[in-house]
């Protein structure tokens, strides 16, 4: 056990699974970098340096740089998974699914069902998401609810280094297609991460704080925003239960509903655009299962329904901040 960044934790999970299982390979744009170029090989290790160093150990056969051709190489990964390999394909930014979404929507998610249980597509697709880095409208979205909407794929959304390693290991070993969402802010987050491999079960939420006043469910990077809010609230004598679902599909509804029943109040913090968001889904879950336990209306904390702006001032205003969560919790308490 040592302190590592999530970047290192994800790299460890990839390397360990590649050592453990010869069927595992990684593929994507510049995941090593420098392919065919006259200069340095492994030039980047992905745009965020997550896969840096894997080329040296595993070689070009298992660390496969691709042209900018998302439909082609995501489809290739799907076919390789159908053939029994364990691809880990990287789509550099979640926004880029715009050019290859058919492979998610009509292909990887459908094969097992529409071919009557005879096909399996054990692919893991890693992607980055999220605002806060001046990357503007086409490189900053938090599109994970779109994927949770589609039956036939699992969706993981780690909020910290420890979960990132364990959930990614589970994803790679899973028999189903898994979409693995990494927030840009995740990579430099540090935490205690065991050196050895471990898995974290999908569909088990983490209960990060326990308090009676309000239940706060937060997703991905918003878990860290909500944790800051929890500290501020605690100073004011308000104690929240903070839940990180960790996977959207499967979703740990039991833990969520139990926490809401215990607290009687619910705030959902979600970086996705508000319409048809995870916040909407959790609010719906409570409204259809246990509305009678609510002592106050559910409060959703999302960005406004606008594209992600560029200017730092606007982007700051766009993103939910700890203060927004504090306000939302107090609203449920009538304060």
């Amino acid at each position, binding site marked *: 056990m040592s302190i590592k960044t999530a970047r290192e934790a994800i790299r460890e999970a990839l390397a360990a699974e590649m050592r453990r299982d010869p069927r595992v*390979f990684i593929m994507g744009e510049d995941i090593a970098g420098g392919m065919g170029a006259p200069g340095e090989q492994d030039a980047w290790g992905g745009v965020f340096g997550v896969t840096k160093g894997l080329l040296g150990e595993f070689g070009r*056969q298992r660390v*496969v740089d*691709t*042209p900018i*051709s998302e*439909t*082609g*190489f*995501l*489809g*290739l*990964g*799907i*076919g*390789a*998974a*159908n*053939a*029994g*390999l364990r*691809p880990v394909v990287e789509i550099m930014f979640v926004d880029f699914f715009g050019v290859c979404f*058919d*492979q998610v929507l*009509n*292909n990887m998610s459908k*094969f*097992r*069902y*529409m*071919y*009557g*249980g*005879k*096909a*399996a597509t054990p692919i893991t697709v890693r992607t980055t998401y999220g605002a806060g880095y001046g990357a503007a409208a086409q490189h900053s979205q938090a599109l994970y609810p779109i994927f949770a909407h589609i*039956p*036939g794929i*699992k969706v993981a959304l780690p909020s910290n280094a420890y979960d990132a390693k364990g959930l990614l290991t589970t994803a790679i070993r*899973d*028999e*189903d297609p898994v979409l693995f969402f990494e927030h840009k802010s995740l990579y430099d987050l540090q935490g205690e991460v065991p050196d050895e491999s471990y898995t974290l079960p999908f569909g088990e939420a983490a209960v990060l704080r326990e308090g009676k006043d309000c239940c706060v469910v937060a997703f991905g990077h918003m878990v860290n925003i909500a944790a800051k809010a929890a500290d501020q609230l605690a100073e004011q004598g308000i104690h929240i239960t903070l839940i990180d679902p960790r996977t959207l599909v*499967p979703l740990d509804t039991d833990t969520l509903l139990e926490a809401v029943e215990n607290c009687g109040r619910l705030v959902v913090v979600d970086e996705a655009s508000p319409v048809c968001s995870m916040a909407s889904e959790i609010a719906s879950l409570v409204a259809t299962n246990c509305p009678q336990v609510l002592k106050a209306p559910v409060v959703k904390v999302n960005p406004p329904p606008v594209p992600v702006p560029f200017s730092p001032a606007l982007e700051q205003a766009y993103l939910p901040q700890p203060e927004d969560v504090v306000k939302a919790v107090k609203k449920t308490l009538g304060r």
Partner: protein
Amino acid sequence: MSALPDGLDVHGTYRMMRLLREFEDQMHVAIARGTVPGFTHLYAGEEASAVGICMHLRDTDVLCSTHRAHGHFLAKGGDIKALALEIFGKQGGCCGGKGGSMHVADWSRGMWGANAIIGASVPHAVGAGFAFQYRGEDGVAVSFGGDGASNQGAGFESMNLAKILNLPVLFVLEDNGYAETTAASWACAGNPVARAAGFGIPGVEVDGTDVVDVWTKFGAGVAHARAGKGPMFFHVRVPIFHGHYEGDPETYRAPGEVKALRENADCLGKFRARVLAAGRAEAGALEAIDAECAGAAAAAIAKAADAPFPPLESLKTHVLSRSQEV
């Protein structure tokens, strides 16, 4: 017309083409009775392509297909009864009744399925080719697409990847002249073989009414791919005897067009005349095959029409690897 190659299994080739034709022509009648749900796209007229190609394939080779897949399914060794049951949406269908005509598959035979998003399955063949190369196997992956698919970006991305990674992928463009109602002559700029050549992929023009031409050229392609020489491209021109889908009024076709195709561009009629003229088969033997195939198709379709629907519990199975409660 070239001589009949010695290595060609004349009776086997004729039998498979006849089976495909009988199945589709009898399905055409069954569909007209109104008992087949959904949309069906028949392969009649194009049999030489599937048969001439699949005779070179092993069960471990992979075939990725289109919405017009019944012929590919049978030629790759799929079971005719499971095919008919699936098309009727019945229990025991090759996909348990969850796929239908547009998704027929037999994964145990390397028939990875009909895929009804035009062009979507092309990169999956590239992935299958990648897996063969990754494991050091000499398998080949065959991607079927129509002239409609030939304008999809997925196909171009796939050709590029297959070439730069030197993968054993054989791209087959079955050009029946129409993408739904739209003529390929209008919709496709340039020339398909030249397009492949633009990627550095060797391509050949193939007469899809001549199963010998298909068999010969594709045999060379399979040898090329198995030897690690990378992808190839085949532009197979085929006639289509029925409409885009069953029920299509076909008003976009020229008067007399289908009649002329059936008379002059029928791969079965041409092959039959040729093998008889070459003395490679007896007329009686071919007639026996005709009867055998007609009986097999009729039995499969009749059984499917009478079969029960799948149990309703299956609605929620196979969403994920472990049955997901919905």
